[in-house]
């Protein structure tokens, strides 16, 4: 007979974990929805200046107050979510499209193709992640597109390694060997038999790296080398608010909280996905 206390001790943490994963999913869905429908859910134009209400504290008119130019904080935060999500998702999409594809190729082909692609990954990973992204921005110049590319280049080798290692193990499975034996073309084997096996772990890593991308992008923008200063963005908002923060702490409180909540949501979701799909990803998602 099983000891009920023991069952309780093992099941409860697991349930609590699922609960945290659901919380993460909820946060992420709200963030994405707010960003998608930003023009319809924001009470004000995020760029509209009204100096008569500059540096207003949170209240009924402006729920989260206004900034030094009288722009509505809540509206700017919601539009800032667009920039952050574009950075996070865009860089991950770039990382999967380039690194993921090359990793797949490396794992499936093996030999010198594998060696070459993996040496390339090693080289990119030889730089501290944040420093690499900053250096790429230095080459490309500021702007949202370049920011996405810079963070994407950093994400590429991480996806490359994962895709390569997974492909290596899938390649050895009997059904892949059977497909090859009956003459199924390589492209079809990759599409039908290999790629589906990679989806779950790659998605788990993608969730994690989206959060990393948001953090890196916010840090670069905060330092003045990310998106342009007039863009409503969580990082630039924090940077511009610094001179006023002693008297108006709400200016630095809310943008930072927005980052933490958005990234925490993604991390909770990623933790849950990792527990469910792939325990190998532990600790693979933080740059700054």
């Amino acid at each position, binding site marked *: 007979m099983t000891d009920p206390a023991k069952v309780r*001790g093992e099941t409860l943490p697991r349930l609590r974990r699922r609960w945290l994963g659901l919380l993460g999913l909820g946060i992420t869905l709200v963030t994405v929805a707010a960003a998608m429908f930003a023009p319809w859910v924001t009470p004000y134009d995020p760029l509209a200046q009204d100096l008569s209400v500059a540096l207003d504290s949170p209240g009924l008119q402006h729920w989260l107050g206004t900034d030094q130019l009288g722009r509505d904080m809540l509206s700017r935060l919601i539009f800032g979510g667009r920039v952050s999500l574009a950075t996070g998702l865009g860089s991950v999409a770039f990382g999967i499209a380039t690194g993921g594809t090359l990793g797949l190729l490396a794992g499936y082909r093996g030999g010198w193709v594998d060696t070459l692609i993996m040496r390339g990954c090693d080289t990119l990973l030889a730089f501290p992640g944040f420093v690499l992204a900053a250096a790429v921005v230095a080459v490309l110049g500021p702007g949202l597109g370049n920011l996405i590319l810079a963070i994407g280049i950093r994400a590429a080798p991480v996806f490359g390694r994962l895709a390569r290692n997974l492909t290596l193990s899938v390649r050895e499975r009997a059904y892949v060997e059977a497909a090859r034996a009956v003459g199924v073309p390589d492209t079809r084997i990759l599409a039908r038999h290999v790629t589906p096996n990679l989806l779950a772990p790659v998605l788990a890593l993608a969730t994690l790296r989206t959060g990393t991308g948001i953090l890196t992008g916010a840090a670069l923008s905060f330092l003045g080398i990310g998106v342009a200063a007039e863009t409503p963005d969580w990082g630039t908002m924090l940077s511009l608010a610094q001179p006023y923060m002693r008297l108006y702490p709400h200016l630095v409180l809310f943008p930072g909280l927005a980052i933490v909540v958005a990234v925490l949501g993604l991390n909770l979701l990623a933790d849950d996905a990792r527990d469910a799909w792939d325990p190998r990803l532990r600790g693979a998602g933080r740059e700054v």
Partner: protein
Amino acid sequence: MGRYVARRVLQLVPTLVVVSFLIFLMVRLIPGDPALLIAGENATPELVASIRERLGLDRPLLLQYWSYLGNVLRGDLGTSLRTHRPVAEEIAARLPATLQLAVASGLIFTVLGVPLGVTAGIRRGHWPDHLVRVISLVGVSSPAFWIGILLMLAFSLQLRILPSAGRGTLAHVVLPAVTASLVGIALVSRLVRASIIEILGEDYVRTARAKGLPHRAVVYRHVLFNALIPAVTILGLEFGVLLGGLVVVESVFAWPGSGKLLIDAIRMRDYPVVQSVVLLFAFMLAVVNLLVDLLCGLLDPRIRYE
């Protein structure tokens, strides 16, 4: 052992060659005339011509790289566009500040992170474990620059008990070091916890328990030390993360280190400085990974020097 160390050091060479080639290419990938980029916008035609001469832009790319590498190895990293001083001097002037901050934050996250991780691992599933889980999740999800700003707001601007920027007294180190250590605490406690849990499941721990060794003795004699080795290895791999954190924290607190130098140089398009600091950081990362490998080999007799 000596041969093993020598071979590991030699293995660094190809990595650093490729890394330095990428950094060399950096300036040449930017659209426009590299000589003009390096000379800066307000340079005289003579200066641009002399830089073009120095870079040898009419020669094949590999030859250009060869002379770049030669210059770097001789300690000639070029001249800063902003200060017109040798880049090597600029970096040397700021390196001690970065090292001081790195050591201070390293001390903080080791002293706090290791005990947190050990407690969480030993009391798995109980409240210390949950507490550590929350700390590491929030720590990993929070932007260091924001935490730094909040600490500055609280302790410098409101309470006025700590300086908000610059370097000088010991008090100046406190806020930047605490900020930079937060990521480390999150990483270390998580790694040590996982490592402790793994070791607790080992056969020799079960044997120690079975022969009646008290819990405390099992933990101190068989678990702690063995758990630290994998944790140190992974932490070494995460050194790049900590280094990236330092770059940001230095800029937040106007800490005059090499990380702030990098960000300032990117802002001012001071490419010779950007190239050299990026190279330095990649070099530091490679050396730290090597040292961690060697250290683990020293601590763990099971790792053979094959």
